[in-house]
């Protein structure tokens, strides 16, 4: 087993993304959070820089890199705006579903625009009737005159109001045992009957827009079906497990790093009893505990992305990483706030936003309890 280290290229990539973040994200993160807006206008620039299609092969307009590089991108962005982080990571979900499960025509039709940032991607799976209870969803797809008519309402969907390419799961029938058959379709955002619904006012991840997406007799041709009838559950599950949870994990690694940097900065500048705050052991322990959690989250996340890039099964590793990173980001944000005393609750500082973004990250991509169920199942089965 080799010890963990990024390659020279990955360090250069990180530096390039950080330059973009310092110029375009850091100065505006607070404003996006306060006004609850998603900076859709950044998509073309992010496309140009390769951030929209990090793991898409160059032949389709992507940067031709892997999921480790994608995690680096999300981490760097989320150090300042986890809201933009989840918006971009959701874009990646729609992109990944088409890349890994689409046929050549579908890939050629959608991937170039998703990679260039001309179009925003989305993945609509969760419903009032089925979130954790994944198969409990009720949206339907009916074959009529050789076309599919889709109906339903999705909720808690990130990019609900901005997605131009929306991958939906619907129940298209039942199998011989009476179990629901789920199929995935690519919907063009401006298709008739496909509209966003209510917008949620979230307490965190506010640089992204989350809400309902409705299909009211949306008609799509059979060429919009992803892979084949009944593949929807596998497509959705794998994408959420290996691209969604990976994304949330990396986003929270970014938040964790933000917590440490802000804590160190503040404790250097603030003078108490005639000395910088971090001369006090109580503060030192807070910073150290944050550091330990950050290192653990980072290692778990990049270990899992490394496995995915190597083509190894990694659903459990992502469940572990996502569970740990998201929960740790909340603990560390609170710890950082504690170390700042009264200043911790003042909105001049980003730490309150870090806490809220961490809290909102926990139920994104499956609750912590779902991650624990997955981990338990694998562990008990000896895997």
């Amino acid at each position, binding site marked *: 087993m080799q010890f963990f280290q990024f390659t020279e290229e990955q360090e*250069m990539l990180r530096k*390039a993304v950080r*330059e973009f973040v310092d110029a375009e994200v850091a100065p505006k993160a607070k404003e996006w959070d306060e006004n609850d807006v998603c900076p859709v206008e950044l998509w073309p620039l992010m496309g140009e820089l*390769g951030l929209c299609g990090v793991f898409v092969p160059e032949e389709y307009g992507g940067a031709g890199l892997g999921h480790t590089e994608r995690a680096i991108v999300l981490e760097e962005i989320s150090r300042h705006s986890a809201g933009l982080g989840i918006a971009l990571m959701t874009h990646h979900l729609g992109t990944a579903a088409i890349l890994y499960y689409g046929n050549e025509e579908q890939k050629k039709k959608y991937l170039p625009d998703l990679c260039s940032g001309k179009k925003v991607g989305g993945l609509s799976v969760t419903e009032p009737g089925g979130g954790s209870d994944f198969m409990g969803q009720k949206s339907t797809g009916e074959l009529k005159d050789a076309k599919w008519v889709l109906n339903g309402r999705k909720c808690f969907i990130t990019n609900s109001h901005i997605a131009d390419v929306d991958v939906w799961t619907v129940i298209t029938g039942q199998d011989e045992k009476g179990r629901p058959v789920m199929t995935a379709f690519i919907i063009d955002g401006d298709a008739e009957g496909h509209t966003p619904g209510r917008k949620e006012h979230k307490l965190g991840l506010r640089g992204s827009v989350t809400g309902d997406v409705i299909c009211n007799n949306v008609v799509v041709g059979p060429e919009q079906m992803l892979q084949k009838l009944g593949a929807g559950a596998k497509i959705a599950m794998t994408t959420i497990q290996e691209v969604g949870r990976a994304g949330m994990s990396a986003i929270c690694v970014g938040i964790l790093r933000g917590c440490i940097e802000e804590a160190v900065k503040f404790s250097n500048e603030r003078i108490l009893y005639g000395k910088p705050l971090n001369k006090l052991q109580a503060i030192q322990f807070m910073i150290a505990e944050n550091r330990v959690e950050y290192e653990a989250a980072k290692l778990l996340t990049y270990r899992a992305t490394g496995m995915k890039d190597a083509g190894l099964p990694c659903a459990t590793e992502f469940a572990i990483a996502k569970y740990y990173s998201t929960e740790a980001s909340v603990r560390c944000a609170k710890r950082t706030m504690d170390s700042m005393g009264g200043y911790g609750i003042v909105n001049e500082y980003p730490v309150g936003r870090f806490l809220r973004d961490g809290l909102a990250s926990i139920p994104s991509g499956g609750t912590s309890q779902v991650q624990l169920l997955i981990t338990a199942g694998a562990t008990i089965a000896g895997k």
Partner: protein
Amino acid sequence: MGLSIAVCIKPVPDPKHYDKIKIDPVKKTVVREGISTILNPCDKHALEAALQLRGSDGAVTVITMAPPNAEETLREALAMGADAAILLTDRAFAGADTWATSYTLASGLKKAGPFDIIFTGTESADGATTQVPAQLAEWMDWPHLWNAVTVEQTGEQTLKVRTKAENEWSDYQVTLPCLLAMSRESNKPRLTSLMGVMKAKKKPLTVWCRPDLDVDDAALGMKGSPTQPGAIFEPEMGRKGILISGDVDEIAAQLVEKLRTAGLAIETGDVCAPGGGNV
């Protein structure tokens, strides 16, 4: 045939951290530990100008005279979009002032050329002498302009360039080959894409040392520099300050008193002799 363009760059300690720089009291040298090295910010404007002028059939070569670890900075310039890089590095070049530096750079450029244009930044963040662009042009025997804000190709061999002085702009027509030192106001340097980073490692990076260049040893490094450095020290700037505190109103009242003592007539907004009273 497109334009063959060269850009001179310099790796410098990150200016954001200059306040951390100290002087070693024993060795009497500058201590810049913990401060990372970056591509000189002004040089990015030069590289951006070069990339914009290159078009579809030109080529941009970046060159620097620096220690061996400058390879990293050259790769950054390649990642930004330059096509090739040259590193001039040798102990013999060390300690050079602008005279010897521009002499050495010119030798490297003549060997790598011929170029149609050389772009530079206006000054480096660390030394900030502003002298290398003009001096390099002199060694090349080319015309040059310092602090160019716009560059327009008006003919196959001519450019129209606007430069800015403190409060005046001036337009010139300059014939190729020429050297232009690009102003901070001239453009917004592009960000580096992930694709650019991956392409950078495959682009050619050539390293030349003393034996590779046609130069006179007496003109290199510290030996070849007409200016010689003496002592270095930190500037004395301290003042014994007094703290004014209180609520907003109390502070304002105390400030008004201090301004009066300094010679401002608060009632009228005029300036008079210290201590009050009009002169």
